[in-house]
């Protein structure tokens, strides 16, 4: 066994242990902490699978942002006595058997790959040059399967509206309740003053570099969102009221630009979501930049939760 495979085996063992303990530990808080650790380990697995784009996304969104949400929820939720509502033993056994069956079925499916493994990688590389992009994943996201990416932005907006819809009627248009945690802690304020400039540069870099190397709108947007949340949590800036026009405009800027360029493709490149020859790269970079901003705002507001206070006029 080479060093790499020893590392892989150890990594898999660790992922499974931490993952299982995130399910099985008694308190919700411990479970969430386990989950955050798990997210980081998983992004290592993604690096090992030669999917750096996904590793970045997993670390930023899967581990980081989801962990933040879960931690916030645990901190706010009232403690629940777990034992009183525990599912019965026979049922757990049955569920365990079912889950083992599913896992075994998947394992069998994985174990016997088709004889020539089908791949679209050569086709992607063949068709990538006209777009001017160097990152094949970005190529798939913004050129070949642009419709999915566009729809997914709409999904994000709908989820945000769904989160907002859980506000009480009187708070509609008001500010999210993120300041609940804000303590005027000098250390935190120090961090919130020092880090965002670095983070913003880093987020923009991630978005920019995404055209040719791993990175892109999601990863960059997540970093920007994290910086924004840090500033809000430290109390340096208030979370914006959800009725603010600038907020709404920022939220839709990315999708609107994407859609507009897609429609322009109808006129100039004779297909919806096609890019005119020679203009593909600048158009995609423009879309990515706008999307980064919109994603940052959408993720930040998703993490901030529904509005709790009416806006003070």
């Amino acid at each position, binding site marked *: 066994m080479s060093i790499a495979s020893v590392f892989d085996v150890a990594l898999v063992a660790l992922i499974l242990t931490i993952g299982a303990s995130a399910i099985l530990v008694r308190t919700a808080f411990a479970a969430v902490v386990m989950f955050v650790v798990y997210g980081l380990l998983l992004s290592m697995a993604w690096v090992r699978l030669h999917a750096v784009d996904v590793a970045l996304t997993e670390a930023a969104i899967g581990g980081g942002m989801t962990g933040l949400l879960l931690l916030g929820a645990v901190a706010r939720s009232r403690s629940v006595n777990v034992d009183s509502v525990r599912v019965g033993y026979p049922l757990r056994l049955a569920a365990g058997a079912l889950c083992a069956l599913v896992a075994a079925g998947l394992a069998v499916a994985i174990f016997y790959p088709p004889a020539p493994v089908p791949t679209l990688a050569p086709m992607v590389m063949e068709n990538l040059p006209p777009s001017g992009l160097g990152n094949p994943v970005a190529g798939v996201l913004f050129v070949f399967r642009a419709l999915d990416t566009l729809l997914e932005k709409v999904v994000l907006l709908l989820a945000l509206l769904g989160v907002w819809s859980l506000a009480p009627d009187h708070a509609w248009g008001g500010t999210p309740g993120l300041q609940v945690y804000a303590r005027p802690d000098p*250390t935190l304020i120090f961090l919130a003053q*020092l*880090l965002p400039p670095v983070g913003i540069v880093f987020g923009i870099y991630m978005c920019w570099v995404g055209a040719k190397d791993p990175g892109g709108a999601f990863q960059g947007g997540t970093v920007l969102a994290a910086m924004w949340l840090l500033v809000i949590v430290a109390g340096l800036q208030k979370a914006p009221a959800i009725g603010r026009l600038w907020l709404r405009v920022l939220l839709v800027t990315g999708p609107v630009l994407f859609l507009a360029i897609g429609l322009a493709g109808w006129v100039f490149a004779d297909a919806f979501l096609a890019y005119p020859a020679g203009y593909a790269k600048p158009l995609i970079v423009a879309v990515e930049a706008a999307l980064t901003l919109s994603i940052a705002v959408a993720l930040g507001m998703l993490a901030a939760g529904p509005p709790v206070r009416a806006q003070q006029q």
Partner: protein
Amino acid sequence: MSLVMDILTICAVSAGALFFLAGTVGLLRFPDTLTRLHALTKVDNLGLGLIVLGLLPQTSSVLFAVKLVFVWLLVQLSGAVVTQLIAGAVRHHGADG
């Protein structure tokens, strides 16, 4: 020359790894939050610092080396702040965590 560099890398990364091991043992074995924090910060500072130091000779470009140092600096910053915050929380609410 490259041999010296490689030896430096091996030594520094091993030493860093050792600090990580020690820090993890400390995190698991130490009795209360403050002493655990003490163990953790050693990992952040020295462990990661030594690993970054060890990797520097292996970098292909200056930009890459600068990125590595940045990683260390960022971890320093966040580690220091988080430690402060946790310690502050312990002082306010008592060390029950």
